[in-house]
């Protein structure tokens, strides 16, 4: 990449941070650049520097860029084998808790949050669970709250659901209206959607399960490390962490806090402190 272009991108991100408080400076550059280029070509502006001017003086332009910077690509029961492992290996552990606190960090438009709610309901756990679903983008969170998706996609989601070990008719979980699928509102009762930014915000309560998939891939190593340590600090002893299939704890400074629960599916369990921890540690090795 030309040096001038790299400077332009850095200045743009700096301007966003100083004016709006959103910090993308430690995002993976290659993806950020793609998104900036996309907005540039959509906007008809002639350079990244012109975009910088536009976003400083036009909040609406910033809103559109913010949407570009969010990852809005998701699906219900994405990676069915992961959800199968969730059902088989994680659910039995969650049963031990009288009340289950789950943090879904970076929930985007909510498809995977509802997938989790469906799974918990089928396992008889939804009534005693609270899912905190967070994202930094309010527009995306509103869509998640609505829980209205394209009917066209339901066929694919049904296949995912079945591969993930689901045995109910998937259509039990939504109502079709015109070309939309409206997710059963009773699934939402245990879900609290709220604003949280992994880059700038802090610890989020004492959780039993943290779910953050395909978010960290957009961060550089330093920011990944911050987020992973935040997760470790937000989990109770023995708590569970679920990452995306290409993500890992391996390079983070808190990797020693965890053992593999389902290695292939990137499900980790935080060690117990004290005696229990030693047992866990030995058993894990």
């Amino acid at each position, binding site marked *: *990449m030309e040096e001038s272009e*790299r400077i332009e991108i850095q200045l743009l991100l700096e301007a966003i941070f100083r004016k709006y408080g959103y910090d993308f400076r430690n995002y*993976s*550059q*290659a*993806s950020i*650049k*793609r*998104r900036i280029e996309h907005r540039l070509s959509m906007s008809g502006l002639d350079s990244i520097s012109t975009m910088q001017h536009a976003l400083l003086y036009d909040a609406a332009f910033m809103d559109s860029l913010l949407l570009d910077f969010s*990852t809005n*690509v*998701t699906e219900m029961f994405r990676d069915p084998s992961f959800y199968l492992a969730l059902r088989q290996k994680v659910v039995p552990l969650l049963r031990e808790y009288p009340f289950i606190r789950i943090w879904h960090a970076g929930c985007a438009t909510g498809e995977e949050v509802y997938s989790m709610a469906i799974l918990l309901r089928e396992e008889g756990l939804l009534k005693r669970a609270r899912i905190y679903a967070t994202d930094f983008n309010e527009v995306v969170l509103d869509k998640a709250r609505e829980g209205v998706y394209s009917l066209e996609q339901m066929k694919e989601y049904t296949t995912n659901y079945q591969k993930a070990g689901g045995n109910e008719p998937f259509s039990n979980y939504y109502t079709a209206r015109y070309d939309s699928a409206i997710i059963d509102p009773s699934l939402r009762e245990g879900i609290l959607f709220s604003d949280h930014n992994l880059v700038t915000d802090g610890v989020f309560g004492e959780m039993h399960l943290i779910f953050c998939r*395909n978010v960290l*891939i*957009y961060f*550089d*190593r330093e920011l*990944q490390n911050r987020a992973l340590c935040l997760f470790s600090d937000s989990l109770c002893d023995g708590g569970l962490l679920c990452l*995306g*299939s*290409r*993500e*890992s704890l*391996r*390079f983070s400074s808190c990797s020693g806090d965890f053992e593999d629960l389902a290695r292939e599916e990137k499900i980790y369990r935080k060690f117990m402190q004290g005696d229990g921890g030693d047992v866990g540690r030995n058993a894990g090795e």
Partner: protein
Amino acid sequence: MSGGTQGNRFAAAVIGASAGGVRALQIVLGALPAQCGLAICIVSHQVPKSKSYLVDLLADGLELPVRVPDEKEEIAAGNVYVAPPNYHMLIEVDRTVSFSIDLPIHFSRPSIDVLFKSAADAYGAELVGVILTGANGDGSLGLKRIAECGGMTVVQDPETAEAGEMPRAALAATPVDHVLTLEGIGGLLAGLSKSTW
């Protein structure tokens, strides 16, 4: 335009393939020496939901190590890196690997364009871009970017490709340095890969 002496101008080759790609890739990779001075990064379109057998198919009989890289792994010469299904693979300017789940391009994730454009930014004139057989237009914009950044561009002769559409789209999009058969491309890369050791 860094790149040092004549001998080691190239650090990496990116290869894009689609329909008919596995056999084509086997021929090209089969021509490379076991001590390969290039890093090879590959996007080959696959059925998105299927478990990936691509790595196994390509590794079979090859001395070079073939694998899906780890996220943020540093790219090193002598390795063949394959994009996993359902993710875009990108190269950062510090020559590490990133993945993304951004929307498919040309109905494809991984997309050849996404890999090629990011690699052009990371490697500039030290990059070789190769478009093989395929039945869509993915890769041509990426190859154009590689040419603009001073890299070498190579396209499989569409007449010899199992599916000629992708090579033709690339030839229409940008001036290309070499139009060759699969054996010719293998020989070219083998020559380029020798110099750095």
